[in-house]
């Protein structure tokens, strides 16, 4: 006979005071994108009076290792998790495993593939929208016609598939005026691979290309410097606001970048988790919340952060008003 679930797990009291909440932020691996999480987490700790936060990026882009890490953190007494799942296709199992142990999980930065979400909520960039925006910006920069190239990461990742879909959607809207010349995948593994691929691309088709949309970090860095060096009139749309990219915007080698909201993800994510621990429930469990994406060009490079902070404040307010129901 199978033992019922009732007895398993520590009989956790339904409500935890913020001081009892220990949140672990677990990105998929070491990546510049996640660096703001560290400070945001600390900020959340002081602002909300949390019992503890940690940031651990040792997963190394390997779902098994990430699961391992999550279990270790749980064993260490962390009771709430903000996780960027390495593999969106498998991450729901990880989430439900944690939930089964009465631990709270938020999916941060990336949502599980498919329609269901076993985490309490997902606070992430809507990657399809972000890619769509990036492509729109590119099309605008190109003057509405010409050839576009899309550089991105691991093809067997459903987020990549969504990005490809986003770019395709924007291109389709031009009714054939803009042609998606090529989508290059799998070049985000390391910087050198990206550099090599971009150089080859420019050598082969440099003169035909009017803009490059990047939806991954290393290709963005690589295409910015390669275009600059080749003196071709190609508009580069980068991703995120790593210092390198922002420097590129300022010196003109990058036409625009699509910035996401990692700070908001970590900070508001921590807030949501704290509230849930305190006895609130999600009005729609597993809801997907867009943390926002912002197009940054030379004109707003100085000010985009204010816009982003406003979004974060808005998100926090939305949690109180829309997403959470508290007794």
């Amino acid at each position: 006979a199978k033992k019922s679930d009732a007895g398993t797990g520590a009989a956790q009291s339904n409500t935890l005071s913020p001081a009892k909440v220990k949140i672990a932020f677990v990105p998929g691996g070491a990546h510049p994108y996640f660096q703001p999480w560290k400070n945001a987490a600390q900020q959340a700790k002081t602002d909300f009076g949390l019992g503890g936060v940690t940031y651990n990026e040792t997963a190394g882009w390997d779902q098994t290792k990430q699961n391992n890490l999550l279990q270790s953190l749980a064993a260490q007494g962390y009771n709430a998790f903000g996780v960027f799942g390495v593999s969106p296709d498998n991450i729901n199992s990880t989430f439900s495993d944690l939930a089964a142990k009465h631990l709270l999980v938020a999916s941060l930065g990336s949502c599980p593939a498919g329609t269901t979400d076993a985490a309490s909520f997902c606070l992430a960039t809507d990657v399809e929208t972000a890619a769509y925006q990036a492509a729109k910006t590119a099309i605008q920069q190109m003057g509405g016609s010409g050839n576009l190239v899309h550089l991105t990461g691991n093809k067997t990742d459903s987020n990549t598939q969504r990005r490809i879909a986003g770019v395709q959607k924007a291109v389709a809207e031009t009714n054939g005026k803009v042609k998606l010349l090529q989508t290059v995948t799998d070049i985000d593994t390391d910087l050198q691979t990206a550099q090599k691929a971009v150089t080859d691309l420019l050598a082969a088709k440099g003169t035909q290309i009017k803009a490059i949309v990047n939806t991954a970090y290393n290709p963005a860095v690589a295409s910015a410097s390669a275009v600059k060096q080749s003196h071709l009139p190609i508009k580069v749309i980068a991703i995120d606001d790593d210092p390198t990219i922002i420097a590129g915007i300022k010196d003109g080698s990058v036409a625009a970048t699509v910035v996401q909201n990692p700070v908001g993800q970590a900070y508001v994510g921590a807030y949501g988790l704290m509230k849930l621990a305190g006895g609130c429930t999600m009005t729609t469990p597993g809801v997907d919340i867009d943390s926002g994406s912002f197009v940054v060009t030379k004109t707003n490079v100085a000010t985009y952060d204010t816009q982003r902070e406003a979004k974060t404040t808005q998100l926090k307010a939305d949690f109180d008003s829309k997403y959470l129901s508290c007794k």
Partner: protein
Amino acid sequence: MSAPLPQPDPTIATGPTSDQQVAQPRAVRTLPFWANPRFGLLIVIAVLVVVFSSLRSSFLNVDLTIVPMQADLSVFLVVGLAQLAVLSLGHMNLAVPRMAAISAFVMGWCYQHLSVPLWPGLLIGLAVGATVGAAAGWIITTTRVNSFVVTLALDFALVGLVSLLYSGVGDGVAFNVHPAGMDSLRTDTFSDYCMGNLCGPPVPLIVPIAVLAAIVVGLLFRVSRVGREILMTGSNLRAAELSGIPTSRRIIQAHALSGLLSALAGFLLAINSGAFSADIGSSFMLPSFLGPVLGGTLLSGGAVSVLGTVLGAALTEVIRTGLNLLQFSVQQLNIYIGVVLVVALSLDRVRQVVAERRGSRS
């Protein structure tokens, strides 16, 4: 026709024995039991467990440490066995990751589109893995090209094929079906099943599958004729051929076994992680070598150690989990893993040398 063991034929003059018994070399004391490399590995693991659990009591937490460790270990044990199957020949199988991926695709597809039950689906997957492995073996024997080159090329071909299959035939990059039994295989341990007050041990349900695989592979190489002939082929191909061993067939069989075990590893990983997806197997390459090589299996072929593979895989799992619990940052973690590995193995080496000294002094 079964011929009996050849007996000394009385009609044959039996050489020296007709004079007198040959003086056999006086047997001096042989190596002490603790000279066995497997024993050293066990000690290293035990020491690490003690160290980690005294530093972090949560290392012994059943639900959060012990159970997940067993589940991971099961996967990496089978991955290691998949590599071991061809290391026995002195070959390598660089396509282990993608043999797992292609089999996982076929299994996922069968579950999703044909609604095949869990276990028959596994059998289909194993058959696919074995077939791909056999193909690798066949190419190696007919062309006599280095197994490294052949399996590397095969890996390339399969990487492409798998991703094309998922985007073409499958739905994106994963199958999200959960055939009956898959979820309980993932989440349950034997302690969830009770007879009255008597519950099983906290062992995940997939562990027996891996253990069974290890036992079968162990027996194959230890007692079966085919396994021994594979080892002899690995030990000295020319001598094997001149001893009447059908070496080509044995090479193909060893590679087929490797493919089959890769498929099993893919299945176990899919169970553990909850979906049959395109990235199954992509993390298998290094662990596949790690277990066997740490366990004392040489890359040169002719000898394998299944028990060593179990211990080698366990060692890596213990180090990683323990260091995870100590919460190092990413760079420290890697540094410490490397250092622990070198130090542990050096100490093991010292033990071995001491043992050999003892053994040769009568």
